[in-house]
């Protein structure tokens, strides 16, 4: 819309009809002489692309030079390619309003804090952050001044919303049991700063199912949970039941892996048989073709012995009909195929083992089948430390150790376990083992064992890779805003959680806290 009441004004990025039927996107400075007739306006400066020469001259823009046709075509093609190739990204980058978190403090890996910084998100991703980042025009600003921003926490061992769901096969995925509409539980987890989880399937002992990884962002179609992968690891539980049941479970799992091995041998046999069969088939076909050709040549010569040859031909046909025998195809077994992935190191295995005896069983399995394994729980790992140290592809996923006053109440735990693991060079991580709400407290507790200055680096290192670990950086989609500095203040609590540019959780105001 053009406002006629002004003496001089600018239209930036406006769609301008140039009076000749052509229109263009342009930035124009007008000095209206006759306020009633726009075409008579003096256009003192015009910058545009794709404007026809005639239109530009009509507008007094004769100084403009037309772009070469090839360049115009190239630009148009590139734009089209970009828009059609990545419509979501392009739309997000160019047409979505930026979200700006103004005046936040950002704790860094060196222990310092970037104070009064802006975080700019476009299309759900951080595109800029730091004290020098200026908020773009027309951006959406969030009043979060004084809050501390970190990346979201990742719980590597969560059973969120899986209360009643039980699975007992390698083909079962934990994602299948995730209740994305259980907003109460999910929001409680988000309120603790956890934005990503590895969902551990629950079920009777033995092979339980596959671990899934997901983000707790809100979904367009309702509910929460965006799946990243359904094949994080295969979960095996060796710690449930009585000692006798645990031994049986171990034998059962071993048997399943053995039969998977046998199945692979049979598959290999089948493959080689099939190859042989194909070769035989080709040879047979070649032979038949040769014989047919020979027959045709001899047909004319041997007209006299017609009756005898006909008899011989019948015999040969019978032989050809028999041909090579096709090998029987093995019946598909999806569960065994997943076990084969485990044996081929395509899928790691997560073995739940808490007591030393269970850990020893797990170690035997890992050694026998050369598994890439994660040992979950591992409370009594200090009792089998030497055996663990000998394994190459093994890491520990620890859960919250809680000391009990009751004798024999649970596995024995050593307060110096982490130091011993570090000494032996065994990698470890921390998981909540439950609804994920306790993850931050668990990490704080373990950081006390480590005597580290801050639990934050340990928390952000969970499930993160690369030199920056899980620290807030460009490209990140999850931001947690804390009321205090989580690196220093043990009582710091999350205030807001932002995933993919959406505030998925916000701490209710004082009077409404704990409301229905």
């Amino acid at each position, binding site marked *: 819309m053009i406002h006629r009441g002004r003496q001089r004004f600018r239209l930036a990025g406006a769609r301008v009809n140039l009076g000749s039927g052509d229109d263009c996107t342009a930035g124009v400075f007008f000095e209206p002489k006759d306020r009633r007739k726009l075409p008579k306006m003096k256009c003192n400066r015009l910058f545009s692309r794709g404007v026809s020469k005639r239109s530009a001259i009509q507008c007094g823009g004769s100084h403009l030079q037309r772009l070469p046709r090839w360049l115009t075509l190239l630009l148009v093609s590139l734009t089209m390619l970009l828009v059609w190739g990545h419509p979501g990204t392009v739309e997000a980058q160019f047409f979505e309003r930026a979200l700006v978190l103004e005046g936040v403090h950002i704790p860094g890996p060196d222990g310092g804090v970037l104070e009064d910084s802006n975080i700019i998100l476009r299309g759900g991703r951080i595109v800029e952050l730091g004290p020098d980042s200026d908020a773009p025009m027309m951006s959406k600003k969030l009043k979060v001044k004084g809050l501390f921003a970190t990346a979201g926490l990742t719980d590597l061992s969560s059973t969120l919303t899986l209360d009643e769901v039980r699975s007992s096969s390698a083909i079962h995925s934990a994602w299948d049991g995730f209740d994305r509409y259980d907003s109460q539980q999910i929001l409680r987890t988000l309120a603790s700063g956890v934005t990503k989880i590895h969902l551990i399937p629950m079920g009777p002992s033995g092979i339980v199912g596959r671990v899934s990884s997901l983000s707790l962002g809100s979904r367009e179609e309702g509910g929460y949970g965006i799946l990243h992968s359904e094949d994080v690891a295969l979960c095996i539980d060796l710690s449930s039941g009585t000692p006798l049941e645990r031994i049986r479970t171990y034998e059962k799992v071993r048997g399943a892996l053995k039969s998977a091995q046998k199945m692979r041998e049979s598959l290999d046999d089948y493959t080689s048989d099939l190859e042989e069969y194909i070769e035989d088939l080709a040879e047979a076909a070649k032979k038949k073709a040769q014989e047919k050709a020979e027959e045709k040549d001899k047909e004319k010569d041997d007209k006299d012995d017609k009756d005898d040859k006909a008899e011989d031909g019948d015999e040969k046909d019978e032989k050809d009909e028999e041909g090579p025998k096709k090998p029987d195809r093995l019946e598909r077994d999806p569960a065994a195929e997943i076990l084969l992935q485990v044996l081929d190191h395509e899928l790691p295995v997560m073995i739940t083992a808490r007591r030393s005896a269970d850990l020893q069983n797990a170690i035997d399995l890992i050694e026998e089948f050369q598994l890439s394994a994660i040992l979950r729980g591992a409370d009594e790992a200090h*009792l089998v430390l030497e055996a663990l140290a000998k394994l190459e592809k093994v890491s520990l996923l620890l859960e919250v150790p809680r*000391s*009990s006053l009751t004798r024999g109440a649970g596995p*024995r735990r*050593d307060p*110096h376990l982490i130091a011993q693991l570090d000494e032996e060079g065994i990698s470890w991580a921390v998981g909540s083992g*439950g609804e994920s709400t*306790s993850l*931050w407290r*668990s990490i704080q507790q373990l950081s006390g064992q480590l005597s580290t200055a801050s639990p934050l680096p340990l928390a952000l290192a969970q499930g993160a890779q690369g030199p920056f670990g899980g620290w807030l950086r460009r490209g990140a989609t999850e931001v947690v805003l804390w009321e205090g500095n989580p690196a220093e203040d043990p009582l710091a609590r999350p205030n807001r959680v932002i995933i993919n540019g959406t505030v998925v959780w916000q701490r209710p105001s004082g009077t409404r806290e704990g409301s229905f």
Partner: protein
Amino acid sequence: MKSGNRWWLWILTGWIGWCTTVEGSENSVVIRPVAVVAPDGSICEQMAVVIHSDGTIAAVIPADQADPALTTVHAAAGSVLTPGLHDLFGALGCGQDALLAGTVLFDSQLDAAAAFDPTTGALERAARHGILYTTVAAVPSGIRNGSSATFLCKSDATAHPVAAGRPMYALADSVLQSSREPTSRSAMVSLWKDFIVEGAGQNRDPGVLFCPDAIDFRQSLSLRWKSLPVLVHQGDARSPVERLAGKGALMVVGPFLEDGNPAAVATAVRAARTGTELAFRGGLPAAPANHLRGSAAIAVAAGLDGDAARRALFSNPARVVVGHGIGVIEPGARADLVLFSADPLDPAARVLQVWRGGQQLGMNTFDSIRDLGGIR
């Protein structure tokens, strides 16, 4: 007067007392420089606590004013000195069955102290985790369930009581029995009304009332109390809890579990916002030793103020059992102290030292695998 001003006045009084009475006492021990948890739950930095040879606190003074000639325990940087933790209405020092009450509806003779076994080793183990007091009470199977008993956590031939017993009451389903009256909730409430308005309950110590569920809590508040008892609640009473506003109530909550009922935590947080003072239950010895602090950390994460959480851990449990000289660090109080490596609400905080009646406990019992093996 603001609590902060009161705290400074209290330090000043302590300092004057220190100057006049304790100065030069050779058997005294001073812990400094250390952050101290004040009775209002706040943390005062750079303090010194002087322990008298009789096992009481002689003074709480700024660290730079302590006599350098005294035997000094140098506290680690960042460490926080607190009163002993207090496990309320658990079974620490008792077998679970020992606390069963009889079938009498109004049993004023029942004494929980009779079920207490001071020789049990769990008391000593609890002390090394910073839990220095235990209050036991009978299972609430009648309207009046005798009296509570509070002891020092010390494995010994004789028990060391630190507070007088308080009458224990119940308005809960556990009171209803088929073998005697009342057999219905309405009958129970009716008996309660008679007891409060006309009967013996009118002018006595309101004591401690078990009202574990929301309905118990609501019906308890509807009774005409002359003075409100200590309410022991562990359910979801988010709605009726608003009625506690302005009543100066004291409420025992928990124990809170990780992945436990969030409504129970929200109830406690809302109660605190109405001005109700809280005290945490630990559920020992079945629950983990650090469960009291765990409950506090869960409540803080749910929105409870840090000072209120520290009061709920230390000073308020002493108010529940009307214990004098326990639960606070002030001149004249028992020198039952715990030195944590950080704020006790920090899950990373560890128990560094424990003083029980001024005596320092050895803390290296659980530091080796061999010792851990012996616990099982």
